[in-house]
């Protein structure tokens, strides 16, 4: 697929906000319907991959993505320790649904950024060695 193909670029550009909306819908409604953090996170990761596939330019800063992924992971490991394991969520029973939604958002964003960083690191690699000889 050459980078001069403008059909796929236009179509992916049109579909971009709908996929984003679907991803956030699956993440936020994870405690009510089937879905949740991991499923919505994979949908968000497919955005990074699709954007690189139709327009292979290395202008995405993967270091910033990795930094935000680690920050959200730190929040993800900190929130249950403070809220769940000390029994604070059971003391205030009207905030239990908000706790579930908060954890789902953290998991979804972390999985999305993590898988996006993984694929982009594969794509930006320059080989150390001579080219192929079969």
């Amino acid at each position, binding site marked *: 697929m050459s980078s001069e193909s403008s059909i796929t670029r236009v179509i992916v550009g049109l579909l971009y906000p709908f996929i984003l909306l679907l991803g956030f819908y699956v993440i936020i409604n*994870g*405690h*009510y*319907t*089937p*879905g*949740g*953090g991991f499923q919505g996170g994979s949908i968000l990761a497919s955005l990074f991959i699709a954007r690189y596939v139709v327009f292979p330019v290395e202008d995405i800063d*993967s270091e910033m993505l*990795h930094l935000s*992924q*680690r920050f959200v*992971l730190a929040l*993800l*490991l900190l929130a*249950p320790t403070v809220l*769940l*394991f000390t029994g604070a969520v059971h003391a205030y*029973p009207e905030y*239990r*649904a908000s706790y*579930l939604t908060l*954890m*789902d958002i953290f*998991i979804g964003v*972390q*999985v999305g950024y*993590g*898988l996006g*960083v*993984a694929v982009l*690191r*594969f794509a*930006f*690699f*320059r080989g*150390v*060695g*001579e080219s192929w*000889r079969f």
Partner: protein
Amino acid sequence: MRIALSALFIAAVFTTVTVVNARYSETLDPFLYDYMTENFEEDTAAHNAIAAILLNYRMYDTMFEALILLTAIIGMNQFLPSPVELKELSARKQVAVGDKVGKE
């Protein structure tokens, strides 16, 4: 020759496992299934049993599984350097960029 032997070995092990499964089977006590399907809505205010299990009953699994993703990316950082890191490493003479491949 090696392919035929491997196919024979795999077919033999598969037949053994299938025959053993057909003759002996055991069932576990359905205690966990009964407890989870009846009480998941009072304990956690979730309408989805799987979200209640993953985010309340088995929180440790979810936390450490998020850590596994980070570990995989750190491992890939080691094996797949970006061009900026390659230039930096070759300036410090720790890796030779452009190795010669031995002739076959």
